[in-house]
């Protein structure tokens, strides 16, 4: 029988790893993701999980150990937060280009300086263009589900890409929420055993990662790009199966909330979606025609789905929880891609972005009410006067 538990995001991810029967784990301590490794260490010590638990000497090593293990044919898991995520940066491209379906759980943490334990998406966002699948969980249940879903997609031979499975530090990683743990048989039905087309096996010698000439490079880049293009069909298939087997109701790419007849919407991903839902519900009770669109996969970016979802509104407020210093929108990263997605749409909504939840600050209801006011003003004025609002630091809407 599937059973219901109260689990933090880290504990939920550990349960997913156990049920996915990961074979090689590599750890290194950094808050907040560490709780995942502490859970896994206990499972290995108790005999609940038969895996090699390797104490990495740093995040760069964590990714390197699991890369080797994945190439040898083992299902692997590692993870990190904040500066740990950026410390491992060198390894991300070789892993994706080597088409090793490594899974990395990222529990976001603000980058230094100064030292800050709070959650912010900048750590993972800084690594987004290497050829990894990537998406955020809103709550521990989604963290659990996303782990299984990503193994299934990443390990699919039509894709073979690594996965950053992200959750907001503390807000998801450490606040317990309801998690339905499925039957092992359900997981086994959904997730086939890991196989790699050409593992490192002396019975079938292969060379991984030879030196190429510049004219051979584009071909490999194209193949990595193609894997990202091929991923959406596989994502759709996997989500369909997941919903059927586990009785869930996920949309593959974007999820809408109270968008019927809405004139404006928040575009958001991760933990703060939960507060945004409450804000939307309250504003609706006040007669404000607002909804929200949640992004489930940042990579591959669902251009079509984003365009379709957002083009029905008159104004969209993109909630940014990351920084892109000096970028075209002067704020975070998401608005760049949102605007790019809407470029070919004949009836484009007005768009702007809100810097909120940086450094791990909460995004309270009143900040969402403020954002709604800005969006209402944009509709009234018929234009977006700014591309970015630093919420809490602006004189007025």
């Amino acid at each position, binding site marked *: 029988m599937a059973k219901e538990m109260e689990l933090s995001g880290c504990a939920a991810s550990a349960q997913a790893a156990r049920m996915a029967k990961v*074979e*090689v784990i*590599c750890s290194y301590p950094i808050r907040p993701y560490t709780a995942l490794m502490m859970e896994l260490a206990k499972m290995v010590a108790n005999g609940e999980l*038969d*895996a*090699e638990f*390797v*104490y*990495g*000497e*740093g995040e*760069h*090593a964590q990714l*390197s*150990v*699991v*890369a*080797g*293990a*994945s*190439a*040898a*044919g*083992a299902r*692997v898991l590692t993870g990190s937060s904040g500066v740990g995520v950026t410390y491992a940066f*060198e*390894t991300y491209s*070789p892993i994706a280009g080597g088409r090793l379906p490594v899974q990395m759980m990222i529990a976001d943490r603000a980058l230094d300086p100064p030292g800050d334990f709070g959650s912010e998406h900048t750590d993972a966002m800084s690594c987004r263009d290497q050829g990894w699948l990537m998406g955020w969980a809103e709550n521990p249940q989604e963290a659990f589900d996303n782990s299984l879903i990503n193994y299934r997609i990443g390990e699919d031979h039509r894709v073979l890409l690594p996965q950053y499975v992200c959750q907001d530090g503390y807000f998801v990683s450490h606040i317990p929420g309801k998690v339905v743990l499925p039957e092992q048989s359900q997981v086994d039905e959904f997730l086939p055993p890991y196989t790699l087309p050409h593992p*490192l*096996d*002396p019975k*079938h*010698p*292969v*060379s*991984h*990662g*030879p*030196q*190429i*000439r510049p004219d*051979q490079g584009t071909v490999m880049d194209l193949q990595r790009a193609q894997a990202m293009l091929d991923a959406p069909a596989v994502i759709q298939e996997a989500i369909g199966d997941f919903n059927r087997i586990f009785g869930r109701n996920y949309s593959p790419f974007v999820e809408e909330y109270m968008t019927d007849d809405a004139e404006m919407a928040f575009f958001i991903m991760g933990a703060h979606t939960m507060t945004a839902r409450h804000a939307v519900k309250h504003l609706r009770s006040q007669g404000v025609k607002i909804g929200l669109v949640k992004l489930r996969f940042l990579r591959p970016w669902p251009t079509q789905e984003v365009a379709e979802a957002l083009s029905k509104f008159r104004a969209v407020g993109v909630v940014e929880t990351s920084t892109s210093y000096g970028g075209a929108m002067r704020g975070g990263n998401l608005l760049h891609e949102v605007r790019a997605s809407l470029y070919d749409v004949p009836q484009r909504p007005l768009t702007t972005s809100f810097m909120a939840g940086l450094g791990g600050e909460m995004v309270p209801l009143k900040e969402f009410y403020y954002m709604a006011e800005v969006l209402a003003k944009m509709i009234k004025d018929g234009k977006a006067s700014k591309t970015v609002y630093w919420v809490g630091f602006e004189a007025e809407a």
Partner: protein
Amino acid sequence: MAVAVKTQNLPLIKKIRNIPKEEYYVPGHRTCAGCGPALQYKLVAKAAGPNTVFLGPTGCMYVANASYLCTPYAVPWMHTQITNGGAVASGVEAAYQVLIRKGKREGELPNVICMAGDGGSVDIGLQAMSAMMYRGHDALFICYDNEAYANTGIQTSPTTPYGSNTTFTPPGPVIPEGKKLFPKDPPQLVIGGHPAVKYVATASVAFPVDLMNKVRKALNVQGPAFLHIHAPCPKGWKFNESKTIEIAKLAIQTGMWNLYEWENGEYKYQHKPKEYKPVREYLKLQGRFAHLSEAHIAKQQAFVDAKLKAPGIPVAIPISPPRAEA
């Protein structure tokens, strides 16, 4: 870390004519003529045999070897970053432990060998190498030492000898000796602080049977092992490519390189000269030392003399003083 039972016992080779004919490092590479590192690779691969996985950190033994569609490795091989050879090797070994335990792979644990340059071993790759040794993986880390960052155009590395002319240590009026620092000692770094390590040895392309037997001993032990292999580089050291073996021999005859094994806390020496030649004999054959003055040579001699007397390396034979006429 659980250790899979390894029953392998690669037999030791008595004479050079008993060396196996099979090659696992085959033609197809683009290393310089007389390349010491390529020669030792061939010997290591022969000694290890077919049940082997090589990890190749970036360096000459990657870049000058692993050209797409004609790599010279007849056993599985994977490129690693220059930074992480030890970590990737650890992962491969860990995967095999669990896959064999779960019955997903059959047979013996393969020989997992990380073939790293000096930079990839004791400079930028030091952390990953040390951690592999610390964690007790059943894998072999080889530092093929060409005493420089060769692939990037011969820059000084931590094993580049004192007084070398490299592209980062060019001699000039202000710094007449070129490189002013004395080198790191890789095997001592490993022996010094890694209780899980079972076997450490130094080897040289000048003594191929000794080299291959050390590879086999290192692979027969269960647990981590480390080999430091002297591999002259004609391009970097500036000598004629026909003299690779001669130079390698002279390094041992002058005490610039020592052949030893360390096992169960004990040292054993091989091919120790009856009498050491002055280091000058070795230095004079190489363009990288051509600019050195008498004072610099004396400084190098003093370093070697002290090293030969250092604890752990008992020297029964008196060291001859540098000869004035040489």
